[in-house]
């Protein structure tokens, strides 16, 4: 153990990097201490995150069906067979496109709405701001399941408030209109629910970022006659860059993985699977069609895509001076 430690021991050792809280290690058995503290978390993460990840990759190389699960048939190694099948399947490409367009739409809408409201929040009265944040917090705290249920009810063809209101204002064509019957309206409805419960995160984070901008800076710009859009573009955006990066990547990662809303609101992927996204597609292939190998391959593709996004995230974080 001793040879593993490079940090300078000894009392009051000057830290090589200026890190608060990082402390000198002590002599003898205490070098083991951090590992003892790490043990419970490490055991769970290795067993329930690392090992399944490995298993996911292994399974994706096999033709793994219900018969193989019960031991009724021998396991057949396909190599990259599942992947070539996927890449040659028109359906997979459609689902990938669905996922990308849906996630991109949600991310853009979430960021635009959240940032705009954050700016708005700096320009209103304190109690108005409190009301706005309270409403946002309510949406934020709403579980995906209940949020989906309420939005579905609001847009119900016959009993929903939205259609009734539209009919009342004279648009009688909306009587009994189904919002989930067609592909893109259904995605838009799900997207609206997703944006509703995820913009508060952007609002709160960006608002905190704006408050951290020195007010003298904004005051000076205002005195120089800069317009609000100009201030936003030339001062706020550059200063908020690190926060915007974090919020963007975070939103991409979430919206790429939306499951509950799609599953509940489009009843498992829409009519004829028109509203499938990668996540739901993988689930359906595995647990509805019992094609566990193929489902795993989709899972691997999704993991690789998100890992690529994560790497971009790490690089951008490092460039903006974030230390680990």
């Amino acid at each position, binding site marked *: 153990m001793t040879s*593993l*430690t490079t940090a300078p021991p000894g009392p009051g050792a000057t*830290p090589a990097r200026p*890190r*608060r*809280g*990082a*402390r000198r*290690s002590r002599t003898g058995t205490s070098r083991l201490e*951090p590992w003892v503290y790490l043990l*419970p*978390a490490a055991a*769970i*993460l290795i067993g329930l*995150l690392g090992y*399944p990840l490995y*298993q*996911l990759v292994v399974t994706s190389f096999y033709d793994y069906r219900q018969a193989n*699960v019960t031991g009724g048939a021998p396991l057949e190694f396909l190599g990259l067979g599942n992947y070539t099948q996927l890449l040659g399947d028109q359906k997979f490409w459609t689902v990938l496109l669905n996922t990308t367009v849906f996630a991109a739409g949600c991310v853009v809408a979430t960021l635009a709405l959240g940032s705009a*409201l954050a700016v708005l929040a*700096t*320009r209103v009265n*304190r109690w108005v701001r*409190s009301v706005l944040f309270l409403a*946002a917090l309510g*949406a*934020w705290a*709403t*579980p*995906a*399941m*209940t949020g989906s*249920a*309420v939005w579905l*009810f609001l847009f119900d063809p016959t*009993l*929903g*408030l939205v259609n009734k209101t539209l009919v009342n204002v004279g648009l009688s064509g909306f009587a009994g209109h189904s919002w989930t019957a067609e592909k893109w309206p259904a995605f838009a409805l799900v997207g609206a629910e997703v944006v*509703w419960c*995820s913009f508060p*995160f952007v609002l*709160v984070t960006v*608002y*905190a*970022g704006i408050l951290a901008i020195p007010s003298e800076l904004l005051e000076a710009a205002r005195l120089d006659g800069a317009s609000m859009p100009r201030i936003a573009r030339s001062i706020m955006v550059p200063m908020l860059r690190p*926060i915007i990066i974090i919020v963007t990547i*975070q939103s991409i990662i*979430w919206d790429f993985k939306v499951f*509950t*809303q799609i599953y*509940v609101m489009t*009843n498992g992927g829409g009519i004829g699977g028109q509203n499938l996204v990668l*996540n739901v597609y*993988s*689930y359906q292939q*595995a647990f509805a069609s019992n094609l566990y190998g193929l489902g795993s391959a989709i*899972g691997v593709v*999704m993991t690789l895509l998100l890992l690529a996004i*994560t790497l971009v*995230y790490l690089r951008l974080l490092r460039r903006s001076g974030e230390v680990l």
Partner: protein
Amino acid sequence: MSTSVTAGMPDAGAPAGRSAAPSATPAAGATPASTVRGGPGAGGARRRRAWKNPGSNAAALLVAVVVAFPLYWMVLSALRPRAAIEAGDAALFTTDLTLDSFVRVLTVNDFGRFFLNSLVVAVAVVVLSTICAFLASVALTRYRFRSRTTLLVIVLIAQMVPIEALTIPLFFLFRNMGANVPAIGLNQLGSLVLVHLAFSIPFAVWMLRGFVAAVPVELEEAARIDGAKSFRFVRSILFPLVFPGVVAVSVFSFISTWNDFLFAKTFIISAQENQTLPLAILTFFKDDQNDWGAIMAGSVIMTVPVLIFFVLVQRHLVSGLAGAVKG
């Protein structure tokens, strides 16, 4: 919260700390919370142009009404008589309210049982993940060892693993484990606890890091001089000091677990009595006619605990760690 807060959120959940964590000071995390509560701090004082922007104020109020409306509609529909809903009554306000829908979900559909299941799983995950994450964050911030940075990167990447993609291997893992240890096999609440532990810990470690690092080294030295062993210090001094942070972190574990739909759906297949809330609500969706009153009542029952938790955590965030350590 996508799903989560959430979460993801929940899904949407997980993230709020992301803004606070890198700054390593709990105070940063407290800022948004304090403004929510009326902004007693700098946030409120700095904005001074009172009624200068009637347009902005009106717009903000309008947005607040629109954003809050689905929640209002959920509560109102849960209280509206079933007959009125099915007759197509969509009045924005009514005094004809009843608790029938709540009675219906709690008695006919045994909602109380599912509520209890969800609560047991969420509380177990919160307690266990907090302990594991706290100990790990102590190791990663208060000790210096070679692989520390590597481990931190692993923790960061572990947060990014799309847990949904792991459903298939986890399903088989729990199937096999259940053959040996029934309590953590499929159809058991134990499987849900373990899964959510694994998914909560990386983010909790990441966020607790800042709180643990903020406790001055001098305190630790003083404790050692007074003869406290290392673990004694961690348990009796560090943990109480970091407690506000622990509570803040726990809300995200709670929300992501409470909101979980995918794993409950996948793992709890035949044992209906071990079903959790999201799935119970789903059973009210019928092909012919949804019982919207019951769905809304169930949704209210499911949403209220999360709201309560949010409000509680804000108070802890505001009280913050800074004062406790300085004092």
